């Protein structure tokens, strides 16, 4: 059912990106998204592409593995592209009755497709090179100052790591329930959308009941192991910055500055991207 979802999966390998502090990668992800949506002109595009190629090479994850994650989201990209092509006002370059294609529309569609593609590949590299626990640890540490204004950072991080732990368990359980219902004659494959949605009810009800039961058990088990919130907790592997992390920060910053400088200088460049 969820076989193709590489988004949010960890790919074990020994690369410099795997060893980077998760905080660097989190911030890197943010910087990358900013770069991606603010570059203008061909030079900016080349710079962002260079950045993406750099991390793809550094992360040692097979490229085919990354692209697998895109398959699921392809339909979304196509829909967005179609809307952009046909529904953007501008100079008409092709028309057939009410349907027309404009130059801005075409340009937007191409740009948007590239951005979506880059966005997914870039962010999936972060999750592919970071274990879920490092990720939540990184978030907890990064957002720790927010605790002062009563944002429950630790609790949210804890919830996220537990959710990640239970995804495979609940997936397996869903399959089990589906098979159990199928063996009793339930039909999930035929009928229209509404009939199929209705057929999901006998799966969801037991799934939710079990999930609540599990949550209750887990809460007891956590309490039995002296869990009492984030106060006074220590970490087995506390996050500590290494030299490589600072170097990575500098590189990131350099790319960010580069994109903005290029954006400023090539404002009226050809292509008008």
């Amino acid at each position, binding site marked *: 059912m969820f076989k193709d979802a590489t988004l949010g999966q960890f790919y074990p390998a020994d690369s410099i990106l795997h060893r980077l502090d998760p905080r660097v990668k989190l911030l890197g992800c943010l910087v990358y998204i900013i770069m991606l949506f603010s570059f203008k002109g061909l030079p900016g595009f080349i710079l962002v592409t260079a950045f993406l190629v750099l991390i793809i090479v550094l992360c040692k994850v097979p490229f085919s593995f990354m692209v697998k994650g895109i398959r699921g989201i392809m339909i979304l990209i196509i829909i967005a592209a179609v809307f952009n092509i046909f529904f953007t006002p501008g100079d008409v370059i092709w028309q057939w009755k009410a349907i027309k294609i404009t130059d801005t529309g075409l340009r937007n569609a191409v740009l948007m497709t590239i951005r979506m593609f880059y966005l997914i590949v870039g962010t999936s590299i972060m999750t592919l090179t970071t274990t879920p626990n490092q990720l939540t640890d990184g978030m907890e540490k990064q957002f720790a100052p927010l605790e002062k204004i009563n944002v429950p950072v630790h609790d949210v991080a804890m919830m996220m790591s537990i959710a990640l732990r239970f995804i495979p*368990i609940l997936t397996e359980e869903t399959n089990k329930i589906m098979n159990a219902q199928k063996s009793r004659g339930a039909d999930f494959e035929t009928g229209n959308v509404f009939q199929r949605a209705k057929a999901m009810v006998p799966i969801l009800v037991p799934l939710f009941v079990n999930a609540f039961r599990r949550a209750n058990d887990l809460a007891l088990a956590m309490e039995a192991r*002296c869990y009492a919130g984030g106060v006074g907790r220590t970490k087995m592997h506390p996050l500590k910055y290494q030299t490589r992390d600072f170097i990575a920060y500098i590189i990131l910053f350099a790319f960010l500055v580069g994109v903005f400088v290029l954006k400023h200088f090539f404002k009226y460049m050809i292509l008008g991207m």
Partner: protein
Amino acid sequence: MQNMKNIIKAEKILYEYFRRDEEGNVESINTALDHIDFSVNEGQFVGIAGHNGSGKSTLAKHINALIVPEEGTVEVCGMDTKDEENQLEIRRNAGMIFQNPDNQIISSIVEEDVGFGPENLGVPSEEIIERVERALKAVDMWKYKDASPNRLSGGQKQRVAIAGVIAMNPKCIIFDESTAMLDPEGRADVLSVAHWLNKEKGVTILWITHYMEELVNADFIYVMNEGKVAATGTPREIFSDVETVHECHLALPQITELAYRLHEDGLDIPLGILSEDELEEALCHLS
């Protein structure tokens, strides 16, 4: 000095579950524990046997201070469970292993899960790493330290859970039907780890189960039925009292049952046979 010896001491504990209707009126009361007296000496391997709904799990949760009695007192290592200030210390001293292996593992990596308890206690990082290594080696799971719990078998997951408790350095470990969901191999594994901890590390073990054969090597057994203690004694004493065991809807170990039936048929075999060897000897002496 009395308290030093009794690591767990419960006196006249009463606990009831209320079933309420939609308006919140009490529809029925289910007395899970009916004025139970219970004590465990330090270093013992004590078994609690009972069928489903006999109140044995409720009793286990009392010892870990997960629930407190309505009446009576529970003392663990000399600390009253009713006092909230004691609860963390009680839970550190009395670890608990639950039934479902999946629902008690918190982290997606074995090593980090074992570290969860010490992390909660505020143990310094270097010591946590040390403790985790020791605990995982004790249950023979060190080679799986970087694995995901999802890839382990039920028995292995339960061993990880035990390591998680060992890492908190408890004086006592409660196994609340920890073998109920395991295959025979996993069950034997977990039981042998418990015995090893008891013998080699001097950890007091409280083993809760409805399989009587797991209690053959226990020091002392409590048999529970309908929220009351139906019988107490050494395994031999309990297994000799076949009527009571059957009244409590429990099955004797096969070998004990066989000896009992032979005895009923008029053979001169003592009751309370615990092993094949004993039965063999008894049969040889028949002539």
